[in-house]
């Protein structure tokens, strides 16, 4: 028995001695890893592949709005925004020693065309006509339509090694167990419980990578992941942590920054009466106290959103002359607007107009506790005006299905922001995305669609500003949905082993673990000596 303890102590000691600058991170809390390093499939190991092992031609930094040259050293628009020429970086090697050339890029795009299941970034759906090899280090993408936002799709294409993937029968069913990439890291060790990566010594940008190895343990739930964070075992965790303020007071090396994620809205089904009436929707916008939703429902972890849903960093797109149309929490105005829309309180205290009563189910995904809390508050707030919202948490699958089938009245949901406000407006307002995409309430309007198409036809800032201003007017006058807050991007970091993390003072990157952002972030880290 004594001996057993001795060995145990030894084990514990060994744990505390680590070699080189090792960073430990939580990529997901979805249980044991399965060996799959195909960068085109979402999931824990797919995320490891996307960014750490495989790379894109360009990196779109959504926080700063910049395009950072990556596997392509330069890119240029041509032919009136109908083609993009990429000059590829020379001297880049795949991790098996083969040279990276234009053939790999062509092969990757062709594979996405042949296997639409892999076209997650939507490069072919987005209007790509053909991929042309100019020479070994130059590739031209020809588009069938003008789309100045097209680069954001290209930024999601992880370049695959032709000499390996061309031998794969069906890349969309390929688990790629021994990944060969151009990225900064190599797969060092895989088990279902932990993945370790080591720095690629031949990486084209090796000088800028100061993290020698990365350790990614598997967690099956928030509880065990949170304990590991509280125990100081993790340098980077993209997880929610209740009462994080208390924890960071106890542990000085832990910090958090919950950046603006996707915006969350109260969506109305615009195909139904009475929600076709903009006055009524505007009444809701004035009636809701969003500060309270953020403070109590989201426990202060969400960021406030302005009526035109333009994120910080893009303030120059805000149309100042429309600010007189911005709404704010104002019960008096709300009551006036409800009356203006023709609603009066009935005997039961609920607003009604003819046979329409403002009493609806408010749908929210079951199990999303913070969102359910927000719904409860919304319901309380609206009850003061005589609007009855019955909070109805439903199974996530059913939730999306009901939105898709227009089988709802009001719902708490989100729109994907995308890389820039332009992408957001397109996601949120384009009739192509009605009900099935981020345009969940079904805003269908010809003028809006034309304006959105125009944004894609120009890259000129001043021209875009004019269009954006007109779109903002549409938003403000029609209130297709009421924006409530930005859902947080969960990000907890420890300065024990590394410094240089992004935070609200230095927001140089969105700390997301899903794609290229994470390698960009890691290149900014310095080991603590």
């Amino acid at each position, binding site marked *: 028995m004594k001996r057993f303890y001795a*060995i*145990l102590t030894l*084990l514990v000691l060994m*744990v505390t001695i680590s070699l080189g600058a090792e960073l430990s991170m939580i990529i*997901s809390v*979805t*249980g*044991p890893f*399965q*060996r*799959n390093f*195909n960068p085109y*499939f*979402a*999931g824990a190991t797919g995320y490891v592949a996307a960014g750490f092992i495989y790379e894109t031609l360009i990196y779109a930094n959504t926080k700063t709005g910049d395009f950072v040259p990556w596997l392509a050293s330069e890119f240029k628009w041509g032919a009136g925004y109908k083609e993009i020429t990429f000059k590829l970086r020379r001297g880049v090697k795949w991790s098996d020693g083969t040279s990276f050339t234009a053939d790999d890029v062509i092969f990757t795009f062709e594979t996405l065309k042949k296997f*639409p*299941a*892999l*076209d*997650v970034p*939507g490069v072919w759906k987005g209007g790509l006509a053909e991929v042309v090899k100019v020479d070994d280090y130059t590739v031209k993408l020809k588009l069938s339509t003008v789309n100045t936002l097209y680069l954001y799709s290209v930024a999601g294409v992880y370049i695959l090694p032709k000499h390996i993937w061309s031998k794969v029968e069906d890349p*969309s*069913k*390929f*688990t790629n167990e021994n990944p060969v990439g151009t990225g900064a890291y190599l797969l060092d*060790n895989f088990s*279902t*419980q*932990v993945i*370790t990566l080591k720095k690629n010594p031949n990486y084209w940008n090796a000088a800028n990578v100061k993290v020698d190895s990365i*350790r990614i*343990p*598997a*967690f*099956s*739930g928030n*509880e*065990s992941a949170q*304990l590991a964070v509280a125990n100081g*075992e993790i340098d980077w965790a993209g997880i929610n942590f209740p009462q994080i303020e208390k924890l960071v007071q106890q542990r000085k090396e832990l910090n958090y920054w919950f950046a603006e*994620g*996707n915006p*969350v809205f109260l969506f109305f089904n615009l195909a139904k009466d009475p929600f076709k009436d903009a006055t009524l929707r505007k009444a809701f916008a004035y009636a809701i106290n969003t500060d309270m939703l953020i403070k109590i429902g989201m426990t202060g972890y969400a960021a406030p959103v302005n009526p035109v849903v333009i994120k910080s960093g893009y303030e120059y797109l805000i149309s100042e002359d429309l600010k007189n149309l911005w709404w704010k929490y104002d019960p008096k105005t709300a009551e006036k607007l409800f009356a203006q829309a023709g609603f009066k309180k009935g005997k039961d205290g609920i607003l009604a107009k003819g046979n329409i009563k403002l009493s609806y189910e408010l749908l929210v995904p079951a199990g999303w506790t913070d969102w359910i809390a927000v719904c409860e508050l919304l319901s309380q707030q609206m009850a003061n005006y005589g609007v009855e919202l019955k909070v109805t948490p439903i199974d*996530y*699958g*059913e*939730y*999306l*299905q009901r939105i898709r089938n227009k089988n709802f009245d009001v719902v708490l*949901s*989100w729109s*994907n922001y995308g890389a820039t406000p332009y992408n957001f407006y397109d*996601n949120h307002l384009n009739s192509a*995305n009605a009900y*099935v*995409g*981020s345009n969940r309430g079904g805003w269908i309007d010809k003028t809006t669609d034309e304006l959105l198409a125009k944004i894609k036809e120009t890259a000129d800032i001043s021209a875009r500003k004019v269009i954006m201003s007109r779109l903002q007017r549409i938003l403000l006058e029609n209130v297709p949905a009421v924006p409530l807050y930005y*859902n947080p991007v969960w990000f907890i970091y420890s300065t024990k082993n590394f410094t240089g993390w992004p935070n609200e003072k230095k927001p140089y990157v969105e700390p*997301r673990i*899903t794609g290229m952002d994470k390698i960009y972030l890691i290149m900014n880290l310095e080991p603590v000596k």
Partner: protein
Amino acid sequence: MRGLKYVANRLFFFVITLFFALTINFVLPRLMPGDPAERILSRFGPNVDEKAIEAMRIALGVEKDKNLLSQFVDYLKNTITGNFGISYLHYPVPVSQVLRNSIPWTLGLVGTSTILSFLLGTFLGIYAGWNRDKLSGSALLVFSLSLRAIPYFWLAMIILYIFGYKLGWFPLSNAYSTTEILTGFSLVLSVIYHAILPSITLIVASLGSWILTMRNNMVSVLSEDFITLAEAKGLDERYIMVHYAARNAILPSITAFGISLGFVVSGALLTEIVYSYPGVGYQLYRAVLSQDFPLIQAIFFFISLSVLLANLIMDFVYAFLDPRVRG
């Protein structure tokens, strides 16, 4: 002859029940709303891109195009040949690989804990039944009743918080060390070390039932005439307790034990979640949440198979132990 008829009868029921189980297994997941592509991506909450959902739908190949009957025939064929297809949730990883990664852990942890819990519970139950009029027996009865009343999820959390986090005696999660790469003997040690807390949780959670079952059987056997006779014969107390009472009282416990062994394959969901243990229970839970039909079906197939097999074996063992059953 009679014995043969009994065996044939049992086997026939086994096959029929298995077929029903397989049918239910096929129908249930298909009654769920929503579509798998959306559910698979649901774990990313409000960070899902519709394009990703669209790509996922194409990847999964929309099953709705095939009629249910041909799907059912395919399903039966694949089940019999052991081809479970590609998991939706872990796409493009094959189901067999997911099972290979999780079943051994579950068998090890839950199997060991079930056996230990049964042995310990049975011994304590014999003791409690024998001493039913003494303080020690009553104390054991109260103890096992309260064990059964403890919410098991909460217990797992408390054990983890105290012994793992506060005192730091045991690791917080995973099946073996994630901070270094171990092999051979040190890996075995690490696995045992990591299994201690989850195993204690499982034992504590089921111990009460074993004690109670055994105790109650003991009490009813002890009121039988042959025990009085044995006492009158002046046999040794201990001898009567073991050879006369316990031997007869253990039969129902054996049946229950067989059935729990059958359920071992289904894993221990809550323990696996709390301790991040890589077992089948957690995979099943995730599979159900994401409508991962191929994975759900494979896991249910193994659960039904092992439970039915355990029942079948227990029927035979019982017939062997208890001549009254053979009739």
